[in-house]
């Protein structure tokens, strides 16, 4: 079973980014769970989603709560607190643009800084920083191929009636994928 945590402020797309991963897992016939957590104030409040999925088509998902993550996507500084829920050697993808001063990262984790906001802005998708991180996550973990993830992302947005954003989201995904 694999576990990924997406954390940030409400409005940074951390629930959506988790959904993209869960959707991709489902469309590859894996069992999966997506559990959101957010405060009373959605935009600007603390928000996160935890995604778990089976490593093959048989594996069932145990408890859906945050426990021992393989990956943490941290969109802001407070989200780095969730490193305490990471396995030894876990991948931590950090939104570099949210770190206004250097951070003293602990030993034993693979820290990757991604200028997510700048990359999103560079492909004219300022709101797509979380999608940039999904691209980076897929590249670094190899959980799924880029094609599988991109297809599922578009399918998910199609279900929400947001297919018109496909080109922008694919550009953001590629920006993240190519940056790491």
């Amino acid at each position, binding site marked *: 079973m694999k576990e990924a945590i997406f954390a940030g402020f409400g409005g940074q797309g951390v629930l959506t980014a988790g959904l993209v991963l869960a*959707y991709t897992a489902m469309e590859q016939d894996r069992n999966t769970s997506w*559990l959101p957590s957010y405060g009373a104030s959605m935009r600007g409040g603390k928000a996160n989603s935890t995604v778990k999925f089976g490593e093959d088509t048989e594996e069932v998902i145990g*408890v859906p709560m945050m426990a021992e993550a393989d990956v943490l996507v941290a969109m802001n500084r407070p989200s780095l607190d969730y490193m305490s829920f990471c396995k030894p050697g876990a991948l931590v993808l950090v939104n570099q643009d949210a770190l206004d001063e250097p951070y003293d990262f602990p030993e034993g984790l693979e820290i990757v800084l991604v200028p997510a906001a700048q990359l999103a802005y560079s492909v004219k998708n300022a709101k797509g920083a979380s999608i940039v991180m999904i691209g980076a996550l897929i590249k670094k973990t190899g959980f799924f191929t880029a094609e599988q993830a991109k297809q599922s992302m578009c399918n998910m947005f199609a279900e929400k009636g947001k297919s018109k954003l496909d080109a922008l989201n694919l550009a953001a995904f590629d920006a993240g994928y190519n940056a790491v």
Partner: protein
Amino acid sequence: MKKTLMKGNHAAGEAAVRAGCMLFAGYPITPSTEIMEHLSARMPEEGRTFIQAENEIASIHMVGGAYCTGKRAMTATSAGGFSLMQEFTAYASDAELPFVIINVVRSGRGIGSLDPGQDGYRQSVYGGGNGDYRQIVYTPNTIQEMVDDIYESFETAEKYRMGVIILTESSMGQMMEPVVMPDYKFLETTPDWAVTGTHKWDRGAGGWPMKRKAWEEKMARVKAEMQRWDAVGLEDAEYVFVSYGLPSRSTGEAVKLLRAQGVKVGFIRPKIVSPFPVDAFKAVNRDVKGFLCIETTEFGQMVQDLALAVKGEFANNVPVHFNAYGIGVPSVKEVLAFYELIREGGSKEVF
């Protein structure tokens, strides 16, 4: 069939539509509200009735009214909202009227909290109203199982003319998992107990002695026919975990880890807690050293039914260990720590 990723509460609402629910009357309360949200769109779309009532008492009575005429009806609520419905559940039990309630439990007394928990167990199983009655209580631990349970629940309620509760937790309502939705089905005929307005209704249970006899017979049937559980490794188990709902997913993981290390532990997961799956205990190793109850309550609710089941099956007062996890969902680590404590001879509370 196509799998879709659905939020637990939305899936619960859709399952009711598929099961032929013709009326939903409810009053919003976190964390159950998305069931109403989903049905506020879907019921009119299907030409069925959706009512946001003035409060919980009104909404559950509307459900009862619809079921009096033989139409499938349901409500969904949580915590204090469920408490308000107890006046009706007691009445409906006496009138042998079916109903379905989805109880998305949030922890705590009174206003409580929004955290998941299992302290709605006793109220759901024993009925919170006046008089002595029971309800059939499904306790799914995945969204797919919850969908399947809801799909079946109306028929169960009608078969026994009894209330059915789908007992879930706030996180089950809020999380998403892939689900396959079943086909549409309907209650095609008018049940013979329904009020039809033709003044030929004479199906009353009669006076107290007849009512009592009818309930005794019914409860015996329910107890025999609704035993449902999952089990792992009971034959050689030295200790057996018992857990339902989301904590059963932590427990399942813990049991898998322990058994992979060659530790002889077993696991019983009640899929229905009322009637309690007493038959599950017949397969347990006769030399079992103890049972571990993993539930999220403060003082223990399921543990009492568990202790009675163990007492009924084993002559030698096998200990049933309880650990008050309070609110939330215990982690795998916490379940393992409790097991370590018991194995080393310690205990928290023993029934």
